[in-house]
């Protein structure tokens, strides 16, 4: 029964793998829950900032604020790509990298001088592999990213955009639409695209002035866009990992069914053969 023993070994091995993937699925699911809560918790702040900006913004301000400046020609741009540090998440990082590659190809085609900033080991590994110069990389952004982490990534770029060293800053990240849908997107965070004003705005008392408030507000707004991108990418990563591990667990189950069926058939065949041999032997003795 050589074949049977071999099958038994494989069944055992697939069972063990399924145990591991099932555990990873559960771990990812609980981390996803936590990351998802952070995505939800980040919403009131973002909508408040948007609301304040839309109440202050007037087109003539755009001329005076460096962060609102719309450059006539884009010569130098920075691209910030967010990926995860870990894998086993299906096409999650692949999708982000593809989005980034498309963006880079477009910018290269437009003869823009691109500076690449990468978050996460997966993205860094890829761009190193293809030999693209990475200006800055960050592999120690925690899962529970704070606004300070976002500041570390973007503050320097904000200053350089304000000085006119950069003409645009794009962020590539995964949006967390739902646990099953985390599509990658490219967002242009600098120059700031002011939110649309709806309806009449109340006549605010401004302390000290619209200019002073915007000077403080615009960098906060940009920083928060990056924070939101970080939080959503983390949530997206864990949901992608959970889905990948769920299908791995399901596939292991299917494989086990097939293997067990084959094993049982082999065992039955052997029993049948043994009975035939016994019957044949007895018949030979009688005859």
């Amino acid at each position, binding site marked *: 029964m050589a074949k049977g023993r071999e099958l038994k070994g494989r069944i055992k091995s697939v069972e063990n793998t399924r145990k591991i993937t099932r555990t990873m699925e559960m771990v990812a699911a609980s981390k996803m829950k936590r990351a998802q809560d*952070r995505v939800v*918790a*980040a919403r*009131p*702040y*973002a909508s*408040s*900032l948007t*609301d*304040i900006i839309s*109440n*202050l913004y007037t087109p003539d301000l755009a001329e005076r604020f460096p962060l609102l400046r719309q450059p006539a020609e884009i010569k130098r741009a920075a691209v910030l790509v967010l990926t995860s540090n870990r894998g086993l998440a299906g096409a999650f990082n692949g999708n982000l990298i593809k989005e980034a590659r498309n963006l880079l190809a477009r910018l290269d085609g437009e003869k823009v001088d691109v500076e690449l900033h990468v978050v996460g080991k997966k993205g860094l590994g890829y761009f190193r592999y293809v030999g693209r110069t990475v200006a800055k990389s960050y592999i120690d952004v925690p899962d529970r990213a*704070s*606004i300070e982490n976002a500041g570390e990534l973007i503050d320097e770029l904000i200053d350089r955009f304000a000085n006119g060293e950069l003409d645009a800053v794009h962020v590539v990240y995964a949006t967390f639409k739902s646990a099953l849908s985390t599509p990658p997107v490219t967002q242009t965070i600098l120059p700031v695209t002011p939110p649309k004003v709806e309806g009449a705005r*109340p*006549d*605010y*008392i*401004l*302390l*000290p002035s619209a200019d*002073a*408030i915007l000077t*403080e*507000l615009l960098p*906060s707004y940009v*920083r*928060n866009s990056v*924070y939101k991108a970080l939080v959503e990418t983390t949530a997206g990563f864990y949901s992608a990992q959970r889905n990948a591990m769920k299908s791995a667990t399901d596939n292991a189950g299917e494989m086990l069914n097939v293997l067990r069926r084959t094993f049982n058939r082999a065992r039955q065949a052997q029993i049948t053969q043994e009975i035939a041999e016994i019957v044949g032997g007895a018949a030979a003795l009688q005859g």
Partner: protein
Amino acid sequence: MLKVSVISPESVLFEGEADSVVAPAYDGEVGILTGHAPMMAVLGKGELRLGGSTNRRFKVEGGFLQVLDNQVRVVTERAVAG
């Protein structure tokens, strides 16, 4: 009554009602009572106090204050209860 919310990027620290709000504006404290005119202000470093039945305090550093229709919204990157 004023409806007050204190919002940081990571969470909403407080949401509820208060009789008065004293906030550290960039050049000194501002007090807000019911019926205040719409206002937006830059905050400095200091203590945010919610008076009345909800006696709450927050340490804030930077951020913004928005008053509109008896709703006070404090939006700040750095705020801790205490």
